[in-house]
Structures are given as C-alpha cells and as structure tokens.
C-alpha cells in the first residue's frame, strides 16, 4: 500500500494541500467562518459579563427591574452614577461568587476546579464552544478534500506517482495543520476581544491558557477529521462526501446521547463499546488539569483518528478512481 518513501510523499502532499488551500482562499474562508463565530461568542460572553456585573450592583436587574452600569446605557435605562468603564472577569472567577458557584457546580474534583478557576473565563468559554463547533466545521470543510479530486479525476495525475495511503494521509495531515492554525488564531482573537473589553484581563494568563487548550482542541478535532477523510476517500463527489460526513457526525452524537441515557439498560455494554469509538465520550477528560490526566485521552483520540483513516483506506485501496 505504501510507496518506497512514504514519509517524504506524505510531507509533499501535506505541504501542497496547505498551499493549495491558502491559494484557493479556502483556508481563509474557513478561518473567517471560525473567527466570525469566535468573535460572535466572545462578544456574547462580554455582554453576559457586563449584565452580570450590573446585576451584582443592582440585583433587581436580574428580575427585570432597575439596571445600572454599561448594559443599562445600551438599553436606555436608568444609569448608575460613575459606572466602571469596562466589565471585570473577577465576578466569575472569584471563589464564592454566585457565578463561580453556578459555573463550577458540576465539578466536584478539587484539583479540576482549582485548575479551571485559574483559567481566564473567556478561554473556558472559547474552548467550550469550540468543542461543539470544531466537528461541524471539519465536516463542512474537510470532507470534500479527496472526493473533489475523484469528481474532477485530478487524482489520476497523482495516483501514478504515489500510493493512495500516502496521498490520503498527506491530505489529512494538511487538513490537520489547517485545523491547528485556525484553532490557534481563533483563540487569539477571543483573547484580543477580551483584552479590549475587560478591565482586568492579563495577556500572559490568557496566552498560557491558550497554550493549554489549543493542543487539546486540535487533538479533539482529529478523530472527526479522520471520519471526514474516511467519507472523502470513499465518495465520488464533494457534496456526497459532505453529506456523509455530517451524517457520520450526527451518528456519533446520537450514539453518545443514547449511551448517556441507556448505559444502565441491557444495551449498555454494546453502547459502551460504540460510545468509546465516539470522540464525544472522551471530551470531559480534556478539562482535566494535568497533561498526565488528559494526555492518554489525547493519544487515544489520535489513535481513533488513525483508526477511522485506516478503515477508510481498507476500502480506498481497492476502489476505482
């Protein structure tokens, strides 16, 4: 299945894939889409923070009454005297604050709670939404990568020069590189918005947190990328690949939900196995504080990604191009 120099070929294909995506502005479109969503959720988060801060000073606001602070200004309501210019994230992170109690109520492990309390809330918010967004983004954008070449038959130019496995893995590596870059830039954008809007934002803490969550988000996306590649390898058009990818994503999500609901039933053992193969079931471990805790899960998800690609290759090596 492999040619004489698989690593070289995979690298060549990955580099060309990245350059081609940048040249086609596809990467920029993906980046713009992700950044737009990141900017939107960051703004939404800031709005929530402003309202929360105002409500702390004026509890009646929570019940729809008098509102003070910057949020009140926007609503044209009664404005409190000398409101702070910018909201503070301290109301969320301060231990004992009502928001802290609400946000971290489900986390019982003291080490995990301590770890999360030390992260800038904007980064937690960014990571939380990214866990939901990244799979969708991958299926929309990456599922077509090989299928499009099957459709145009452009694959025939390269299929005489390298093995199908090298080509598919190179394409996947290029997509993974794009995923990593886009995730990092979107995280930076969120931090930038936080720095602009918050009174007590610290860049150093934000960047440290980004370094913690960026690899986790990227690795979390890999199995979805593997599934997208599986679909792409074995379909003949970009549209079919995308639909198959989104269908697969829905299947993984439903499997995880079924397991959550019926794990104690007689179907529990079967669902447990299926759920193990779904990246969603490993998501919670990505919030654990140390690399020792979440590292094995990251390795497992990377293995799962290779598993999906491997299954795809079993069929891909035998199919007509």
């Amino acid at each position, binding site marked *: 299945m492999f040619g004489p120099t698989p690593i070289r070929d995979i690298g060549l294909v990955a580099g060309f894939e990245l350059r081609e995506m940048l040249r086609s502005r596809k990467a920029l479109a993906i980046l713009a889409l992700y950044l737009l969503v990141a900017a939107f959720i960051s703004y939404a988060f800031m709005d929530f923070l402003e309202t929360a801060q105002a409500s702390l000073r004026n509890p009646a606001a929570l019940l729809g009454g008098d509102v003070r602070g910057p949020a009140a200004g926007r609503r044209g309501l009664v404005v409190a005297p000398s409101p702070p210019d910018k909201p503070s994230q301290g109301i969320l992170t301060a231990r004992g604050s009502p928001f802290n109690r609400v946000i971290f109520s489900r986390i019982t492990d003291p080490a995990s709670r301590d770890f999360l309390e030390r992260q800038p809330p904007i980064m937690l918010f960014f990571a939380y939404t990214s866990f939901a967004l990244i799979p969708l983004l991958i299926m929309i954008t990456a599922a077509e990568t090989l299928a499009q070449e099957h459709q145009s038959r452009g694959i025939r130019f*390269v299929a005489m020069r390298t093995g199908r496995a090298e080509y598919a893995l190179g394409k996947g590596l290029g997509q993974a590189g794009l995923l990593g870059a886009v995730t990092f830039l979107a995280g930076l954008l969120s931090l930038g918005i936080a720095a602009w809007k918050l009174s007590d934002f610290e860049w150093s803490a934000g960047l440290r947190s980004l370094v913690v969550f960026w690899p986790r988000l990227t690795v979390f996306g890999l199995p979805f990328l593997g599934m997208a590649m599986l679909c792409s390898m074995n379909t003949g058009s970009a549209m079919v690949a995308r639909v198959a990818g989104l269908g697969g994503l829905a299947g993984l999500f439903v499997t995880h939900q079924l397991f959550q609901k019926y794990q104690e039933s007689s179907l529990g053992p079967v669902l447990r196995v299926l759920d193990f193969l779904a990246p969603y079931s490993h998501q919670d471990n990505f919030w654990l504080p140390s690399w020792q805790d979440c590292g094995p899960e990251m390795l497992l998800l990377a293995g799962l990604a290779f598993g999906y690609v491997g299954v795809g290759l079993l069929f891909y090596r035998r199919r007509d191009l």
Partner: protein
Amino acid sequence: MSAPAPADAALSLRAVGKNYGRIRALDGLDLVVPRGSVFGLVGPNGAGKTTTFSIVCGWLRANRGEVDVLGEGAFDPARHRGRVTALPQDSALGRDMTVVEQLTHLGRLQGLGARETREEVERILALVDLTDRARDRVRTLSHGMLRRVGIGQAFLGDPELVLLDEPTNGLDPRQAHTIREFIAAQRGTRTIVVSSHNLHEIETVCDHVALIDRGRVVMAGPVSAVTGRDDEVRITLAEGPVPLTETRAALAGDTAEWDEADRVLTLRFQEKPGRAAEDVTGAALRALLAGGARVSSVARGQSLERTYLELPALPPEQKP
C-alpha cells in the same frame, strides 16, 4: 497457469475483463505492446480504450485477466512511479496553483530531486510552449493549454512507458503537429501508447496499432502489416485501357486484382531477397504504361482509416 508476457513487451494484457454494473466494457482483451514502439489504440466510442488505459494505470481494477507493466506485474506506484506516466482523459489539475507549481509537485512526487525537478519543468514548459504562462494559475489557461500541460506532465523525468489518451484533442493544427512530431521522435527511446479517434494521426505517429471493438482486440500488429504496406500496392487508373493480362504476366506469380468500380488495381506479393516491393511495382507500372493505361496514383497498402472501415465486425453506426 497462463504463459508469461513476451520478454520484449512493455505492456501485456491477457484476457482482461471489466464490468461497469451490467455493462461489459472489456471482454477478454488481449494486447501486447512491444518495448520502444509507438503504439496506437483505435476504436469507436465505448470500445474500451479509456478503460484499458485506466486498468493499465491502476485507476481501475480489472474483474478478470492479467496485466503486466514493464515485466513487473500490475501497475503499482511503488514499483512504477516515474517509469510509467499517463495523460488521462477528462481529468482536471487543481485550478488555483500555477502551472509551474503543479508540474513541480508532480515531478517531486514521482521521485525527482528539487534541482532535477526545476530543470525538468523548464524543459517540459519549453516543449509544450508554455514557458510564458509558467507563473499563471491553471484556471486561467485555455482548453488547449491545459491539454499541453497534461501532455507535459506525462513526459516529466524519463518514463519508460507513456500512455496518452487523445493527446491532440483540443489542440490547434500547429500545436497538434508539434506534439505528433515529438511523439514520433520518441520511438526507440521509450514506449508510447496513444489512444485516438484520429486514424490519420495514429497512422502518422505509430508503428504498431490495435483496433478495439466491444472490449476486444479485433486486429493488431505493425501499422505496415495492418494496412498492407508490407505486401500490397494499390494503383489507381484513370479512364482508358486496362492491360490486365500483360500486367499479370509481368508479375511472375504475384497476384493482381482489378476493382472496376474504384478503378484500383491491387498487387499482392511477398517481399523476397532481390524482389522488393519497388521491383514488383516497377514491373506492373511498365506493363500498364506499355498497354496504354493512364496511372492516377500509386500507394503501398491502404490507409488505416480504410482498413478500419472495412473491418466486418464493426457495425456502420459505430465507425468514426
């Protein structure tokens, strides 16, 4: 166990079959392409030419039969990359990269080093007359230019076997002529298989030919043998006397058939030492002219097109 491929064969297919659902595209196709030849593959639409190419190149899997490429079994990029290349039909290169980037990528993938690839790409761009468009994106090229890029990539490096599917399709006459000259000049240095509907092109460029119909080879061999150039001379006469008896007497054992409708006298002979085609033709012409015949033209054999059209197995509606 079937017999091994001939040692001097660049390509050998034995009893190859391919189905697309219920449609039988190849039906026990046998083909041997000699090394160093320029080989033409001719047939009507749907005869199986492109399917044959695709199986040889490893894009499609045969349902039955054996394929041997360069004496090393079926195509495998691990064994054949850089040694076997192809111009696929209706395949599109990525539109957003430049011509030079595409060619460089393909050259590197087939195992060339960075410097070697640079030199090869320059050579190929000059060959297909696209040096001035090297930095342009593929999407900006015309159909003919895209075809030339496709031909160019097939000659990157030093391939031993090149398969070209309709290479001059979409080229203007001057470009088509240049490409034909280039292909013909490769004879003896590498094996080239050309698939085309253009029978004149095949006859001009190729030294061997196979006629395919309904997934089978119906005739194959050197072009000179298939068209009768080795053993046949056709003399067309204008209105006037036809001294058949005197001519037949001058041929000393070789046959002469007269077609009254087309006014063509066909001489059939076996070349022997001391008696070449020119000797037979000279003897016949002397007898004809002495008998008062008016000679319009003399040709060795018949055109590939006529040979093709006279094949009994081909229904008229499928002929090109």
